[in-house]
């Protein structure tokens, strides 16, 4: 091997290729870089065992709830219950999908090669987010067979509730993933990132749910009710497209992605 290489080395030394137009790379815009990173993120998720574990568990539980709660004679013939169960599973599943996204860049040191290319912090975070969102989209596509199965037995099922339900699933997933990416930007340890993300998600789901019911003062209950992710999600699964809820999810996602950008910047600069 080594001898072989040395022969080649001497060839190279003789036939040094002519220098091309000075400095080829022009550096793409933020969007271009984000798209490139999203693409890589998606590909690497398909390589990683953890993504398959998450997919397996998510689909297994979805299937289980579908069979045990929806596909039961006499039960409501809609996807509503299933969507709400899926949302519950996502609290634990999605942090596992995003835990390595930025944490791993820091622990492997690859953040250094990444951030010394002409790429902004925003495009890294946005790219990571959309990569994960696309993978999550694939998981959602894999739940479509339930829908067709249900359609066979419940021809009266309303199509629009299914549509809004999936829109809600995407928005909810987006918020969860952005929280996961924010958590992943805070630490170099993947597991810690997952735990942080789950903790934040638990606050916005289970804790505020409790607070909305048992809060001492009216305003406490109101704030908790507003922050309840599942409360906003319930609209979608019932077939309502409420702009308030859409704004809640989108602004929440943007907020956490913004935080992730700032955290990443400050960690690099310390």
């Amino acid at each position: 091997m080594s001898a072989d290489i040395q022969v080649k080395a001497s060839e190279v030394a003789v036939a040094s290729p002519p220098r091309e137009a000075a400095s080829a790379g022009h550096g793409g815009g933020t969007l271009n870089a984000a798209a490139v990173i999203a693409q890589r993120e998606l590909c690497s998720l398909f390589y990683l065992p953890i993504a398959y574990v998450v997919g397996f568990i998510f689909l297994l539980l979805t299937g289980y709830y579908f069979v045990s709660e929806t596909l039961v004679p006499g039960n409501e013939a809609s996807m509503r219950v299933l969507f709400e169960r899926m949302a519950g599973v996502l609290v634990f599943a999605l942090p596992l999908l995003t835990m390595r996204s930025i944490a791993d860049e820091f622990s492997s040191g690859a953040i250094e090669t990444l951030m010394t290319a002409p790429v902004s912090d925003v495009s890294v975070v946005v790219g990571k987010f959309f990569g994960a969102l696309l993978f999550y989209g694939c998981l959602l596509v894999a739940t479509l067979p339930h829908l067709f199965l249900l359609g066979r037995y419940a021809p009266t099922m309303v199509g629009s509730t299914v549509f809004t339900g999936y829109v809600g699933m995407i928005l909810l997933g987006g918020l969860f993933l952005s929280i996961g990416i924010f958590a992943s930007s805070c630490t170099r340890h993947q597991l810690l990132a997952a735990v942080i993300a789950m903790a934040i998600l638990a606050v916005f789901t289970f804790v505020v749910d409790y607070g909305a019911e048992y809060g001492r003062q009216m305003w406490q209950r109101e704030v908790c009710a507003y922050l309840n992710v599942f409360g906003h999600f319930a609209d979608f699964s019932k077939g309502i497209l409420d702009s308030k809820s859409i704004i809640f999810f989108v602004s929440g996602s943007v907020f956490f992605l913004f935080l992730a950008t700032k955290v990443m910047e400050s960690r690099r600069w310390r």
Partner: protein
Amino acid sequence: MIEVKNLTKSYGPVLAVDNISFKVEAGEIVGFLGPNGAGKSTTLRILTCYQPATRGTARVAGFDVFTQSMEVRRRIGYLPEGNPLYPEMRVREYLNFRGKLRGMDRSEREAGIKRVSDRCWLGDFIDRPIGQLSKGMRQRVGLADALLHDPDVVVLDEPTVGLDPNQIRETRRLITDLAKRHTIILSSHILPEVEAVCERMIIIAGGRIRASGSISQIRDRIKGASRLIAEIRGPKQEIESAISSLNGVRRVEGRAVDGWNRLHIDGVEGQDVREEISSLCARKNWGLRELRLEVGSLEEFFTQITAEAATATA
């Protein structure tokens, strides 16, 4: 090509880089030499826009690393310490990804990958996953990435760390080859490496520049400390007094070694008394079996200044 002025970087209370200034001209190949933790990596990270400096400025190709960061990043190829790569990607895939990140279009990427795979000898494993490669191969992939966009400046942080001697030789040859087309800064804590590859070195310790100049300039600086070693057979007292009376000898120190007198002779700077000593021995009929000039090695010099730095900061 690179201009660093009064650069300071502190991590909280710890001063990693302390007010350093230097210049690198286009086409130069400069070695950053210093013990671990001297501030080499920090300086390189500032130059490559990974971290901002606490104080001071640095310009690469005329662009400020802080205010014109994107311009600088477009012109720099960087191989960080430890050479992090994505193990799940194939080499070609990785280089393609890096090219896209740099906004190179398809034909630029193809030409670039072809060029660097020839230069860095990636041909045999360009379609293998990076996770399966040996450390030497990965190092070549890292170098290839740094060269992909044909940057003006190449920054290599500890490029040969962890390689076996053959790979070290290959990598050094590759770097000297690159010098024809790029300005290169490389860091190392191994002196012979810098000596072998670089035209100029900057010795840094404790966050400060301790010495800088061409290899021969630095050699000149340590010549003053030269001394002679001689082994002469004969009456000890007489030999010592005869030699110390020679013009150009400052001090003689001797001890007996199996019937011979082993002498350490400190000379005056710029004077070589070896000829006088040999003719003196011939005249007096003393046996002479060794006579050599001991030039302080760069290694010693390096140890000495880094030790000074350590005591200064302690």
